[in-house]
């Protein structure tokens, strides 16, 4: 297959010569070799070469206009002092160096990290568990599969507003229930860790089902024979989950980790809406201000667009760094697997 594609794509051979290679056979409507139709073959080649580009062009044009240009423009802005409606003044790397010494930046970075960890880790673990359960033959499986996706279909705003009411310090349901159990009310918004946990709860609630469905899809691709073989060897369900399911869907797990990390590092809507009127600054003491919130505050509240752009670029670089680390991890994982497979093969051969 690969060779035939290459031959067609190369376009150096005359059209008639390609036909046998591509396996289309005599019923192919391709043109006959003939001296007159040189321009037709040119057209044909053009069609093969250009049309794919035309098809993908809309995405790349849109990306260039709404993705690449803003990215570059933001980079340019980050080297200037800019105000809405005013003209830009060159500042060099000052915006970046001032970030390095700004405790608000480091605070936001730390918050992004902690909220990211306490929302991503339980979220993915719960998603794995849920997917494993849904993978069993159980009654009403279709219903449950749709139901776990429902939170994902809810808008961030709606979900957060409901949770903000539940976590309301004075009138919220959670503190009321805690009160019945004899606990003191928790200041869900004004204390640092309760606030971060509350925000993580919203994130976890929204994304667990989504990740569970991805895991479920991956689990269904695991060959049934592996489970049968494991069962014959006397492995329990739990053992099967650990030794068959998890290793088989490892690439999927890595994928969800990457996607969740990206999502967590861009966390914006939940803390903003959870904090209500002081949401943009992440609470009165910036106790849950994330990088995105800090960027928004700089750009739109105080009007320092240059500094906001610098934060945007630092976020991008951080994501690239994380992405690079994860690629390294996955590559070493793959190598280890290959080595292991090689070892098994040599063992079998001996």
């Amino acid at each position, binding site marked *: *297959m690969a060779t035939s594609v290459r031959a067609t794509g190369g376009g150096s051979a005359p059209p008639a010569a390609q036909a046998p290679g591509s396996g289309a056979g005599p019923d192919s409507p*391709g043109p006959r070799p003939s001296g007159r139709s040189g321009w037709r073959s040119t057209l044909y080649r053009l069609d093969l070469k250009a*049309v794919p580009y*035309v098809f993908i062009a809309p995405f790349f044009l849109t990306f260039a206009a709404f993705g690449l240009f803003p990215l570059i423009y933001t980079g340019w802005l980050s080297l200037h002092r800019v105000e809405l409606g005013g003209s830009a003044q060159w500042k060099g790397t000052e915006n970046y160096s001032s970030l390095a010494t700004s405790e608000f930046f480091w605070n936001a970075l730390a918050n992004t990290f902690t909220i990211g960890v306490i929302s991503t880790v339980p979220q993915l673990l719960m998603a794995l568990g849920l997917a494993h359960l849904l993978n069993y033959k159980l009654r009403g499986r279709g219903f449950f599969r749709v139901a776990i996706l429902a939170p994902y279909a809810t808008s961030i705003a709606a979900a957060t507003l409901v949770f903000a*009411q539940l976590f309301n310090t004075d009138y919220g349901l959670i503190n009321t229930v805690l009160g019945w159990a004899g606990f003191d009310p928790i200041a869900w918004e004004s204390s640092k860790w309760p606030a971060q946990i509350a925000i993580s709860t919203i994130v976890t609630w929204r994304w667990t089902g989504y990740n569970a469905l991805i895991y479920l899809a991956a689990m269904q691709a695991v060959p049934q024979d592996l489970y049968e073989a494991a069962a014959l060897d006397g492995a329990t369900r739990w053992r099967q989950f650990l030794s068959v399911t998890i290793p088989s869907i490892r690439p999927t797990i890595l994928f969800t980790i990457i996607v969740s990390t990206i999502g967590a590092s861009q966390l914006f809507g939940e803390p903003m809406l959870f904090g209500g*009127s002081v949401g943009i600054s992440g609470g*009165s*003491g*910036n106790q849950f201000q994330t990088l995105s919130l800090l960027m928004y505050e700089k750009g739109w509240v105080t009007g320092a667009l240059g500094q906001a752009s610098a934060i945007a670029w630092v976020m991008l670089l951080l994501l690239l760094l994380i992405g690079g680390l994860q690629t390294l991890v996955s590559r070493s994982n793959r190598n280890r697997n290959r080595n292991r497979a090689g070892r098994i093969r040599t063992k079998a051969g001996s």
Partner: protein
Amino acid sequence: MRTSSSRQGRGRGHRTVSKAVAAVAVIATGTALLTGCGGDDNGKGDDAAGGQITLRIGTFGSFGYDDATGAKLYAEYTKTHPNIKIVESNVADGQKYWDTLKLRLSRNSGLSDIQALEVGYIAEATGPAMAGKWADLGTTGGADVGAFLDWKVKQATTGDGKVIGLGTDIGPMAICYNKDLFAAAKLPTDRTEVAKLWAGDWAKFIATGETYKKNAPAGTAFHDSASGLFNAVISSEPMQYANAKGELDYQNSPGVKKAWDTAVAATKGELTAKLRQFDEKGTWNAAFKNSKFATVACPSWMTGIIKDQAGPENQGKWDIAAPPVAGNWGGSFLAVPKSGKHAKEAAELAAWLTAPAQHAKVFGVNGNIPSSKDTLASPAVQDAKLPYFGDTPVGKIYSQAAAGITPAPISRWDGQVKTFLTDNGILDIEQRGTDPAKAWENVKKLVDDKIDQ
């Protein structure tokens, strides 16, 4: 393997179709990109027949002009100007309104013919970056600038003497108090007696709070919020966030210090209900209904909020007393962007809407305290009473407070610095028990970090 080869086969059969589709797709994308940004902003086509024009007016909160619940000023104006149609677009949140307006001003598109401006942002609007974008209402539109309170005109005047905004209302301040809670705490309930408790000094107000606390009903606080108290105190100070030159100088301002110290004292003495005013979750609103606090700093526009939030079941419980020191909190302007298609007609409408006669009508319906001298002194304002507050002579109380206002110089960063001081400083002390000295340091760092001067 099988699928990929069959897909290839199918692709060939549809070659001509695919080419056409691709061409259409490219053209469609191209035109979408070209037309996507731009031009649905300005009303078009309405000038064609008979000089008929539409004037758009952008407002926030409640200006009391509209035909449904306000003073029906638009209907009145269109009766005498049959060629003009007026459309108001209103945004509830003043901060969001201003953010959008700033963006639209910078692009010169999407603007209304008349835009309302809040006093907190007037210095930014008259500042160098924006001053050139507004029409000079002192010369166009025929407004009688001399009819307004002098300090109100001064606030909307640019460095080179252009008046970019005409005053609508002002925010003279009083103290609203809950009579039931005062009675329960063995304090007087008559409004002149109450005013005497704290007359002349905010320290006496704190002292009254201490007295209240001794006999207060359980679960109630003397004042709603320390940040509200901060705003009330600073509103009555001759120097606020800016020096006489209009430069930000909050660190050396005696007004900021006094307001900060008063708010901290109220927090330390646990005299506040630890709420944030206007919080989006409605906790502050609910506290009105549940009578959680006994007093709230009460600019004239606050009376409407109390009436709405405390609701009919609390009618007659609230009353209004003169403040310790007279101050002004809030107030707005109408401005006309220069780039508008009908700037002249818009300036005329703005002048009419803010003329003394219309001030009086709006006050009668909406309770906005007018910013024109004659209207303030007129019987319509002087004799006004509010039934919800037990027929309090609001007109007298507020016009007296208005007479005692010393206007402070304002800088373009006032609004932002105020937010840092109240939301990140005082609220932090109040809700999280942060040490006041540390909170003050934090505010200074915030201002240094976030205000890109």
